[in-house]
């Protein structure tokens, strides 16, 4: 059973559907949950195989919102008419309500990690070093499956944009979770982490700040640069990775954070070099890859710094007892990165296939009809099983990616919405009527 405050939280006017596909120039407004007939239960821990289900997507959206009520977000154009939204987003009572919901939602989406991963035994510094060395070596040797999937689609430009949208989850607020580990007092290791943070923040030169470089990358693609403009197009898996770093720091798992950040800093240099090459192959010289180039360079240093000057000294100073937590952080983020990559690749492939064409609907399939008016609030969602969208009257746009053309479905046509695939629906005529059939029911 869900906490009673949950409905109050998700029903707030800030979290209703947006007027268009994007949430433009307002970091407080973010569609959380289409209030349909779905009866989502957040009170139990999802299993590993359920991590991409609809309730996980909604839980991650709510969690990111709760985490970000502790970050300062201001719109680039100034508050102006958004002052009320700002006041309500950061209202103390509102944040208290979010904080009370957080443990349940975190258990729902991160509870599986305790079962999925065991770290046991008596670990030593040598074992720690050997384990990280090998994990990093494996991470850097693995083929970049996301880059391969982007280039294999029929529309690699749309696929690459979809990838950039996932990077925007963190790219426009970069190092916000890290900033929460900088307070307190923990000796030279704290200063080491601060050096990395300074790099992320461009040494106080705004044009060199990583999030600014990322804005320039988006601009070069003609994409929106405001925080969470693409809120509705964040996938579950990438949001989980982003939220994980908040989750560990907010719950006092500092050593897990260090293990996780050491691992990602050690594989990002190669990952971003791959990304820069892919973007250049897809978009040519017009794309501004300085964000990727910066990471490809500086993360070579950050990998070494986190490992040699943060992780190992912490283990030396605080004893072998903390080593399993460092290893757990590595393994947890590695598992979530795998889920995120799988989610993105599946989305790219589905959108690529769905974009091919809708097909003629078989007669007699229509079930419960839904009517959608032009201009109705927009939000995206997933289904936990395949659904067949059957158009009965009018025309509808099945939105399958953050950029690129939607799939136009006309009366008499049908389109398959694959399980766990993110999509949105927009009426393309004054109104349209359709039904969504479970393919399991259709088979019966």
């Amino acid at each position, binding site marked *: 059973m869900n906490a009673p405050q949950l409905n109050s939280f998700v029903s707030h006017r800030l979290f209703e559907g947006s007027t268009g596909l994007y949430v433009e120039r307002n970091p407080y407004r973010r569609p959380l949950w289409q209030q349909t007939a779905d009866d989502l239960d957040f009170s139990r821990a999802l299993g*590993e195989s359920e991590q991409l289900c609809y309730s996980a997507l909604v839980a991650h959206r709510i969690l990111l919102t709760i985490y970000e009520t502790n970050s300062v977000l201001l719109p680039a154009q100034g508050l102006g008419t958004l002052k009320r939204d700002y006041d309500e987003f950061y209202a103390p009572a509102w944040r208290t309500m979010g904080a009370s919901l957080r443990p349940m939602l975190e258990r729902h989406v991160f509870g599986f990690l305790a*079962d*999925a*991963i*065991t*770290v*046991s*035994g*008596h*670990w*030593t510094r*040598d*074992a720690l*070093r*050997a*384990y990280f060395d*090998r994990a990093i070596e494996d991470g850097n040797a693995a083929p970049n499956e996301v880059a391969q999937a982007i280039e294999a689609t029929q529309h690699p430009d749309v696929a690459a944009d979809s990838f950039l949208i996932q990077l925007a989850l963190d790219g426009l607020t970069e190092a916000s979770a890290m900033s929460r580990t900088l307070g307190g007092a923990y000796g030279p290791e704290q200063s080491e982490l601060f050096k990395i943070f300074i790099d992320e923040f461009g040494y106080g030169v705004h044009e060199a700040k990583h999030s600014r470089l990322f804005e320039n990358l988006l601009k070069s693609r003609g994409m929106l640069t405001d925080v969470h403009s693409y809120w509705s197009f964040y996938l579950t898996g990438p949001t989980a990775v982003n939220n994980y770093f908040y989750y560990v720091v907010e719950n006092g798992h500092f050593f897990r954070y260090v293990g996780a950040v050491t691992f990602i800093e050690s594989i990002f240099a190669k990952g971003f070099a791959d990304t820069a090459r892919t973007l250049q192959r897809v978009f040519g010289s017009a794309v501004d890859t300085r964000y990727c180039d910066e990471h490809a360079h500086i993360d070579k240093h950050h990998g070494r710094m986190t490992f040699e000057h943060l992780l190992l000294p912490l283990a030396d100073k605080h004893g072998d007892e903390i080593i399993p937590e460092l*290893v757990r952080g590595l*393994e947890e983020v590695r*598992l979530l990165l795998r889920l995120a990559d799988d989610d993105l690749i599946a989305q790219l492939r589905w959108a690529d296939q769905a974009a091919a064409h809708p097909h003629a609907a078989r007669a007699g399939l229509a079930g419960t009809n839904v009517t959608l008016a032009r201009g109705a609030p927009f939000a995206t969602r997933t289904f936990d099983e395949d659904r067949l969208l059957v158009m009965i009257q009018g025309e509808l746009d099945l939105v399958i990616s953050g950029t690129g053309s939607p799939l136009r479905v006309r009366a008499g046509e049908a389109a398959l919405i694959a399980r766990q695939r993110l999509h949105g629906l927009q009426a393309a005529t004054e109104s349209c009527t359709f039904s969504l059939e479970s393919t399991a029911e259709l088979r019966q």
Partner: protein
Amino acid sequence: MNRLSFDRRQFNSLVVAGEPYFLLDVDGRTFLVRDRCPHRGGPLSLGRLSDDAQHIICPWHQSRITCGSLLRGAVPLVRRRDDVTVLFPLIDKDVLLRRRPPLTVPTRKEKSQ
């Protein structure tokens, strides 16, 4: 340090540098512990759990070895689903992997039922 990875559905016991070890699940967590009774070296993996699930009873002389003492000397291990990775200072080429009837310490929840 050297790594050894295996699927725990296939193997739950190994011999490294002549020393036997076995996988022991305690409270839902997996450990790799020495398969040698501290009394006279009996194979603990062939023993049985005490009724209170706190001890392993050695099949040779019925010595009661506390699970806690075994776990203190456990080998560094990471389990991801059924994939197990363990680390040893040295792994000789004659490492032996094998499957024996599993010995599992029930979870607290199971104990209370």
